[in-house]
Each structure stands twice: as structure tokens, then as C-alpha cells.
């Protein structure tokens, strides 16, 4: 037998073997890793419904959606006016107040999760510290949000997230 040809063939077989083995192990890893992702029942979009009929201007309530708090604030016309006159230049995450609503600008709906490291900001209760801009104040690392849920001061990089929602006849459906 030709020694050289034999060596080439052997290398080919070994490399093919290793490659197939690696591919097999990688394939086997998929179910293990994917099983750690949200399961189907967790994935199934849970929707939360909130009746806004009793929410007076200036009042706020907190709903729960996908395990997270959702801040719902009935804004007064002065607050809306105030939110819309803010100079966007110089905001950490510039976004016009109008852009944060489809309709019903009196009802602000944002996730109550600080975009810094996930704490729940204060400001829902009348007695809470609402921060320097009359919205919310995160006690963990001192982020201030305004009445539009925009970050104004502090370490948070983004405005409070707006979840998918719609409002029909004073009924809010989140998710």
C-alpha cells in the first residue's frame, strides 16, 4: 500500500469524523439551550385589561403585564401642555411627547421599569417623590423621568418603554 496515500486518506477520515462528531454535539446542544428560553405558556401573549373610566385627571394606577408593572397616568391638560413645550435638544433620549401616543394623550401608558437597571421608579402614589420633573424618580440610582416618561436626569439611557396597547371606550388593553 502506498504510505502517502494512506496517510491522506486517514487524515480525511479523522477530520470527517471529528467534524461529524462536533456537528452532532452542537445539534444536541440546541434542545438543551432552547429549553431554557421562555416556554410556550410563558410566550403566549398574556393581555391585561384595565378600565380607565374611574381614573380622574392627575391620578395614576399600576397594572401588571407579563410580570412587570405598567404605569397608567391620567394627565391633566397642564401636564400635557408642559410635556409638549420641553426643548428636545439636550434630552438624553430626545423624543417628542406626541410621538409617545397614538391617540388619547391624556392617558400615559409606560412600563414601570427603569431603563437603567430595572428598578421600579417612585411617583405612582401622591406621596411619592416624583423627581425634579414631576414624573417619576428611581430610588436605586437617581434617574428622573418627566410627565411623558422621558429620562431627564440621571444614569438611565432611555425613556420609559411604551408597551403595545390600545384604548377603546375607556378600556385599556395591554399586550
Amino acid at each position, binding site marked *: 500500500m502506498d504510505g502517502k496515500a494512506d496517510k491522506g486518506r486517514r487524515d480525511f477520515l479523522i477530520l470527517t469524523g471529528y467534524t461529524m462528531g462536533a456537528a452532532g454535539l452542537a445539534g444536541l446542544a440546541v*434542545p438543551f439551550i*432552547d*429549553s431554557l428560553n421562555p*416556554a*410556550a405558556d410563558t410566550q403566549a401573549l398574556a393581555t391585561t385589561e384595565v378600565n380607565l373610566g374611574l381614573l380622574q385627571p392627575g391620578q395614576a394606577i399600576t397594572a401588571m403585564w407579563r410580570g412587570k408593572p405598567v404605569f397608567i397616568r391620567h394627565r391633566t391638560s397642564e401636564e400635557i401642555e408642559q410635556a409638549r413645550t420641553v426643548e428636545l435638544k439636550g434630552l438624553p433620549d430626545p423624543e417628542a411627547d406626541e410621538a409617545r401616543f397614538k391617540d388619547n394623550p391624556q392617558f400615559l401608558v409606560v412600563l414601570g421599569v427603569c431603563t437603567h437597571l430595572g428598578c421600579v421608579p417612585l411617583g405612582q402614589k401622591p406621596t411619592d417623590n416624583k423627581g425634579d420633573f414631576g414624573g417619576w424618580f428611581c430610588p436605586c440610582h437617581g434617574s428622573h423621568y418627566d410627565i411623558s416618561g422621558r429620562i431627564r436626569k440621571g444614569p438611565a439611557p432611555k425613556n420609559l418603554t411604551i408597551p403595545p396597547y390600545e384604548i377603546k371606550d375607556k378600556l385599556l388593553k395591554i399586550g
Partner: protein
Amino acid sequence: MANVKKSSTLSKDSNRIAKWIDYRLPILSFLKAEAVDYPTPRNLNYWWNFGSLAGITLVIMILTGIWLAMHYTPHTAHAFESVERIMRDVNYGWLLRYIHMNGASMFFIVVYVHMFRGLFYGSYKKPRELLWIFGVLILLLMMATAFMGYVLPWGQMSFWGATVITNLFSAIPLVGDSIVTLLWGGFSVDNPTLNRFFALHYLFPFLIVGLVFLHLVALHTHGSNNPTGVEAKKPSDKIPFHPYYTVKDILGLVIFLTIWGAFVFFAPNFFGEPDNYIPADPLVTPPHIVPEWYFLPFYAILRSIPDKLGGVVLMFSAVFVMFIIPWLDTSPVRSGRYRPLYKIAYVFFLVACVALGWAGAQEAEGVPLLVSRLATAYYFAFFLILMPVLGFIEKPLPVPESLQESKRKKGAGR
């Protein structure tokens, strides 16, 4: 490991990082000595595959088990539902569970074959007595682990299996009932029982890993037995483990995984009981209660005795007798290959085990009861009478001088 000689070092052309590590922690040269260069008898047949298969099965069981535990809830109110959630909602949860569930059966198949191989070729004989004893300990722990694992889904068979097996201990005179209450953590199989079974089901596999390590240290101290039962004398009687036996083991592994996969994907509930898909009900016992197949022979021994304590004692003895096999066998010849009478006794022993397995699945009356009584009698007679006596009355066939000689003879005979 005082006995392990540092017979191999890393080759000169191995890379610098490997050398750096090995100089400080000689793990690489240890692995090379024990898993690559390890001198192995040149004549091992395919029955020697089952040790490595058992090791790999243990790893697969631990991995799938840890992943299942991430989704399982050990509480009587949630256990059944959490298992169903694994089956329906968790991504690939069905796959993990079916691998684990069928893996238990695969594990026992492999280990039973492994043990029957040792029994035939005399692998338990001097100087491998401890190697065998560690093996029997592993079997005992496996049985406990499998039993407790079967309780976790909290189906009807889980609950009633747990009830029946724990009640075995009530046969112990005087303290039996107190022991059962202690095992349950209450006055019936209930939430405390489920909780501790889960904790122990998670723990035991790691104890098995420890025992497997000792099993391997003992194995590598005197090396593998081989089909002739003759100790390798010359260096030419042995070949390096890699590539010869790695390749042979991988071929066996591929076939084994194919069979396992066939069950997982095409008949995942083949070994299971439909009743275990009914949530546990402490008020209703299923009409026909059977243990998993791997316990059937022992279950048949239990039921062959018309006395509660006697049956329990005999069943446990059926396992414990294995511990003293090395001292029951009096034959000067190790391998069954050269023992004409032992060969016959061994075949009947296989038949008795299968018969016990069959009888264990039937109602304990009529023909199955008779069969289980005869087979139980033979089971114990094989160990306690035939093994010691055959060593004296049997005239063994001529044993080859060396492993190479046995190969040549076999070749010439063809």
C-alpha cells in the same frame, strides 16, 4: 492513586500551554496514561463495550436530569402539572424527558449486560473483587435512584409504586412501621415524601459518579479481564486503548444511541405504564400494579414467597448475594469459556432471570407463580450451591498460555 505509574508523559511536540499546565498539574499526562496509552488486552470482544456505554449513559442521564429539574416542581399539587408543562410547553421539554425516561431503561439494559458479562468471564475473581463490589454498589444506588425518579411525575403508578415499595420495610419486625413513617415523613406517601425523593434523586447520581471513579481506579489497577480470563503477561498481549478500543467503543455507542433514539422518537412510552399519565389519587389503587421492567425479576422473587417478611428478605438477598460472588466461585479457572459445566449452569441462570422477569409481570397465581418459585430456587442455587460446588467437580478445558496463543488457535480452528 499510588499504583498508577507515571508511564506516559506528554509527547515532545505537544503545545506549550499543555506542557505549562501539565508541569503544574499533571492532569493531561494522567489522562493520556489512563485513557489513551492505557494498555488493554488485545482480545476484548464486544461484550466489553458495555462498561463505557454505562458511563456515557450516566452522563446523559445527569445532563437531561439537571435540565428537567430546572422545570420540575416537587410538590404534590404541582408535580404532575409541571411534568405535563415540560411535555407541552417547555421548548424541547418532551425530548429531554423522553431521553431521560427511556434512558433509565437503557441504563439498566446496559448495566445488566455488563454484569452478565462479568459473571460469565469471571471478572469478579481475584484480584478484581473490589472492582465487582463497587459495581454491585452502583447497581444498588441505581435501583434507588430509578425508583425515586419514577415517583417524581406523581402519577398513579408513581404514587402506588412508592406506597408498595416503602411498605416493604414494614415487614421488619418491631420497628418496621416506625421506619416506614420515617421514610414517608408522615402517615402516608405525601408531600414530604415527594420532596425528599426529589432531593435524593438529584443527589444519588453524583454518588454513583464517585463510585464509578473508584470502579475505574480499581479497574485500571490490574487492567481489564478478557475473554480467556488469562492475565496478560507479555507487553504484546496488550494494545493501547486509543485508537483500538476508542474506535470499537464508538461503533458500539453509535448503535446503542440509535436504539435509544428509536425508542425516544418512535416508541417513547414503550417501557412506561399508561396509568402514570393519571394524576396520583390516594383513594384509588390501579387494578394491575407492576414495577418498571428492570425490577420485575426481584418483584417476582418477592411474590414467590407466601410470607411477608420472607419475601422481602429474599428479594433483598437476591441483590446482596452478589456481593459475595467472588468468594462463592471456587473454580481455579476464571473464564466460563473453559468451564463446560459452568456454561450450562450459566445458561440456565439466564433463563431463570428472564423467567423471573416474565413472571413478575403476571398475576401472582397459577403457572406464573410456579415458574417464579422454580426460578427463584434456581437463582439462589446457582450462586449458593452451583458456584461453590462446580469449582470442585468440574474438569475445565485446557486454558491458553497467553492471549496471543488463544488468538492463533482460534484462527487455526476456522
